[in-house]
């Protein structure tokens, strides 16, 4: 592998491949995930889920369930507070807290098959299961709305009779009740004029399926509610503070009544930004005055959590014969599921963000359908948008007879260019990433029969936002770093490296921990590729705060002014050279005599994020008699700013590529006509298995982000943006036809080949 920072020149620890602090616990089974928590006197909660995709709830009779021996609580929507419609801030996004409350437990209507309608708590799981079967729900079934066309038909059945189409500034003109929750245009220049200037125009329509994040660990929570006191919630979450906000909102509580304790997390990818079981467990726990544990089955995970939106994108691009892009237009329709809020907005904003194009008109539609409410999934909306955009760019290269990388290089944004959505980019490495792919030895290699090569790029904004960190020095000189960012991708290793570098202490002397909502200041979620960026920045500042204190203690000891004491390689150094250096462990051992314990802390709102650009290259082989696609080799190149821990950066690139391979080839929700998910398990919801994918080769481009002390830019989301387009382009080149619908599962691809 051809990676920088194997031997960092300027840093001692940052950029090394230190051992991850959580590694041993995870491989030995000692790590405790959501379902691994137990309390004395605990009972088990289970959810009764709707067996209709769309229905009015006429009545729920819980008498028999309540009477069953061992049942300690039975609750329905009637036991939950009525929440007024209010938009609340959830970090990167806004959400309607009433929708969240109704998604957690249905009130008058069920909006998808699997929607929660009641819950029980019992002394054993078996009794809880039996009790569910005793609850009698009378439904009045309604016509099901399973796709974009049905939802947007003139006489469409409405999911929400009070919903009208909103824009960023208020309802659309003459707003009527509609399944279209939002319309967002993004205009720039004049597209009509733009297309008039074009020598070549490419136009096509693309579709992607409803898919799931596919995290291995199902949702799990343990709740100990105390009326009038603190309600404690152990849960597998990407954001304990975000969960606190949502749970409090959904239950009309104040955040300070709740303590959210994040457990070790077995994957999230955006899916563990949404609450499902927690409020239900709180209400059950209150009802029976006992701790309640709830764990979803895989089937429940697939039926009722996640998923990521299905989409349909019509797109048209125009270029001069020299390859200069002059116009781009698109209509992006995204399924939101039962409640508004698909990632249509970021899809619109990212779609052509990588290119300089004078005339652009992008229009997005957020459409409700009878499927589970879409949750975030790694670069929400961007992979779907990139599939459409990068497919037509590929087609354009073919038509112009241009190398697909040269065409992209000609139009790619660089530092100083304006993003299509407004602001200018600072230093970015898109061009370097494109050049790195072009220079890669594979790029020019010949292909055999039935083989094809594809290339595509991807963009994600990344975010900064709020983070807190504390750095505490123990008497023995070891260091404890606490942040509020759950570690889903190795971030504890990076936090330890930041602190190590600042303090001059080896990373194995640093324990990086994830705190709960009581033990650390507010932290936004592990999401938006923000953790190493913003929480890392807080760790750096907290460590610098501690270093300042260490210098002060040395200055006190030596009776020198502070400016005469420097901090070098873990030691206080007397710049007057009158005293021998004081190592950190000596300063901490004597801290009691010099003013007490030594620590540093930082609370910040990180501004000026560094966007991520990636370029992927893939060779495929298509069996044209069966429609099966084999990924022969795969390269992911990305501008990562600065790789703090290169292994976990590479892991992010590899993981994104593998998930993207799944989305491109086999993953999709299959629904019956009645709106019932037909493949709620990993047998037929086909995420890739290890033998499906080759080793994903990575190449890190490092263009430091100026706003971060170590040049970090987020890396977690960008890698899932290019794969769908990369693979679709490669397959299209083999079969000589454009793949416009994903996944390109064997039956679907064979039908296209034989068409």
């Amino acid at each position, binding site marked *: 592998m051809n990676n920088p920072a194997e031997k960092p020149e300027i840093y001692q620890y940052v950029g090394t491949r230190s051992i991850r602090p959580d590694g041993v616990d995870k491989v030995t089974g000692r790590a405790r995930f959501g379902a691994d928590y137990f309390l004395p006197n605990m009972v088990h909660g289970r959810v009764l889920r709707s067996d209709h995709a769309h229905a009015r709830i006429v009545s729920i009779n819980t008498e028999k369930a309540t009477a069953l021996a061992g049942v300690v609580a039975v609750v329905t929507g009637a036991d939950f507070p009525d929440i007024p419609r209010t938009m609340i801030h959830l970090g990167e996004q806004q959400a309607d807290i009433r929708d969240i409350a109704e998604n957690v437990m249905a009130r008058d209507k069920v909006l998808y098959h699997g929607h929660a309608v009641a819950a029980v708590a019992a002394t054993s799981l*078996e009794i809880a299961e039996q009790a569910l079967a005793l609850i009698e729900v009378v439904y009045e079934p309604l016509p099901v709305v399973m796709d974009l066309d049905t939802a947007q038909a003139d006489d469409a059945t409405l999911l929400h009779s009070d919903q009208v189409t909103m824009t960023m500034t208020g309802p659309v003109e003459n707003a009527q009740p509609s399944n279209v929750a939002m319309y967002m245009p993004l205009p720039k220049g004049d597209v009509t004029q733009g297309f008039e200037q074009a020598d070549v125009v490419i136009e096509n329509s693309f579709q992607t399926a409803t898919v799931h994040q596919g995290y291995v660990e199902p949702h799990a929570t343990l709740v100990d509610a105390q009326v009038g006191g603190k309600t404690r919630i152990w849960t597998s979450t990407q954001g304990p503070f975000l969960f606190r906000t949502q749970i409090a909102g959904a239950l009309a509580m104040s955040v300070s009544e709740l303590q959210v304790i994040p457990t070790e997390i077995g994957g999230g990818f955006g899916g563990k930004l949404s609450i499902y079981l927690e409020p239900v467990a709180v209400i059950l726990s209150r009802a029976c005055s006992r701790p309640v544990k709830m764990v979803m089955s895989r089937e429940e995970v697939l039926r009722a959590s996640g998923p990521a939106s299905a989409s349909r994108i019509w797109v048209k691009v125009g270029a001069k014969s020299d390859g200069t892009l002059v116009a781009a237009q698109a209509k992006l329709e995204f399924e939101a599921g039962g409640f508004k809020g698909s990632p249509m907005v970021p899809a619109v904003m990212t779609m052509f963000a990588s290119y300089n194009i004078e005339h652009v008109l992008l229009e997005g539609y957020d459409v409700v359908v009878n499927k589970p409410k879409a949750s975030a999934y790694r670069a929400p909306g961007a992979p779907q948008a990139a599939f459409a955009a990068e497919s037509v760019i590929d087609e354009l290269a073919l038509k112009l007879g241009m190398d697909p990388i040269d065409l992209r290089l000609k139009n790619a944004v660089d530092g100083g260019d304006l993003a299509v959505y407004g602001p200018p980019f600072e230093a970015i490495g898109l061009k370097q990433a494109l050049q790195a792919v072009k220079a890669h030895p594979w790029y020019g290699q010949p292909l055999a029969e039935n083989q094809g090569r594809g290339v595509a790029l991807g963009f994600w904004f990344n975010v900064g936002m709020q983070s807190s960190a504390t750095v505490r020095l123990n008497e023995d000189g070891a260091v404890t770093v606490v942040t509020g960012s759950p570690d889903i991708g190795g971030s504890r290793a990076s936090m330890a490296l930041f602190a190590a570098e600042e303090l001059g202490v080896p990373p194995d002397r640093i324990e990086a921990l994830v705190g709960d909502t009581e033990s650390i200041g507010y932290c936004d979620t592990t999401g938006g590729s923000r953790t190493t960026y913003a929480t890392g920045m807080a760790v750096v500042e907290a460590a610098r705060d501690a270093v300042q204190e260490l210098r002060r203690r040395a200055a006190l000891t030596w009776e020198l002014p502070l400016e005469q004491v420097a901090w070098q390689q873990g030691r206080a150094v007397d710049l007057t050279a009158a005293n021998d250096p004081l190592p950190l462990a000596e300063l901490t051992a004597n801290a009691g005599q010099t003013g007490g314990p030594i620590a540093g802390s930082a609370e910040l709102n990180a501004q000026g994020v560094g966007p991520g650009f990636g370029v992927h290259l893939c060779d495929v082989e298509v069996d044209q*008699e*069966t*429609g*099966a696609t084999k990924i022969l080799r795969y390269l992911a190149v990305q501008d990562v700013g600065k790789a703090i821990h290169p292994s976990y950066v590479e892991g992010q690139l590899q993981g994104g590529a593998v998930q993207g391979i799944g989305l491109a*080839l*086999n993953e999709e929700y*299959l629904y019956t006509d009645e709106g019932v998910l*037909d*493949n709620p398990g990993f*047998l*037929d919801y*086909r995420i*890739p*298995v290890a*033998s*499906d994918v080759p080793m994903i080769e990575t190449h890190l481009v490092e263009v430091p982000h100026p706003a971060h002390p170590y040049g970090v830019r987020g890396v977690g989301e960008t890698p899932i943006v290019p794969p769908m387009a990369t693979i679709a382009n490669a397959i299209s080149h083999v079969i000589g036809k454009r793949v416009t619908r994903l996944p390109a*599962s*064997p*039956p679907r691809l*064979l*039908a296209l080949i*034989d068409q």
Partner: protein
Amino acid sequence: MSSSRYYAPTQLNEAVQQLAQQGARAMAGGTDLLVQMRSRLEKPAAIVDLKKIDSLRRVDITADSVRIGSGVTGAELGENTALVACYPGVVEGAELIGSTQIQGRATIGGNLCNGSPAADSVPALIAANGICEITGASGERQVAVADLLLGPGRLDLQPGDIITAIVLPKPVAGQADAYLRFIPRTEMDLAVAGVAVNLTLDEQGVCQQARVAIGGVAPTALLVPDAGAALVGTRLDATALTAAGEAATAAARPISDKRGTVEYRRKIVAVLTRRAAVIAAQRTGRAS
């Protein structure tokens, strides 16, 4: 889960007696049964674990037969080089099941008795003309594998019947078999379609006998005599292979489901037939 009694007999007659009780179920590797219990499709009152009965766990190759104990796992079959030499196709069917972990548990008898139309080891057993040896409360009997299968999950077995072994004829010179399945992934998936071909070539490479069995495309795996007939007397030229494939397509009675459409299954069963025939022919060492 309500509790079930668990027995682990070491003798076949004990097992037969234990299985005679109401609601008792045989368990070999448990890779189907336990999954069905977990998803609450099955609630046996008693489980009779067959793995401790030695006689079910043997492979015996004699001058004229190959006897595979029903309790032999896929991994054990794969390690048995003498068996692989006789029936590479039967072994590859059984070895395709699941993953490395599953291979250590899943038995050939369990695969057959689970009655899945897509069971991977079954087409090659049918193509090999396999006979099941059955022991039950009413004594012992023999049934051809092809006749045992009545429909999805339905077999010609009485409650308490245990399949003790599957007996295959010893292959003759120039005989070989092959099994190919199609799945969208590379492993951990169920066959959308599967085809086994067992054939014999003479020294000139002309096909003397051929049996083609298809799986995953009808309520049970089945023999397609027309597909075999299309190969006999040929050197497996393109015309013969196409004809065999078409016969397999014609015999298929697939359904559309989450794993594939009727149209798709009909197409690929022909592709698999052609490819499996070529592999089997190559294995005879006599292909032209």
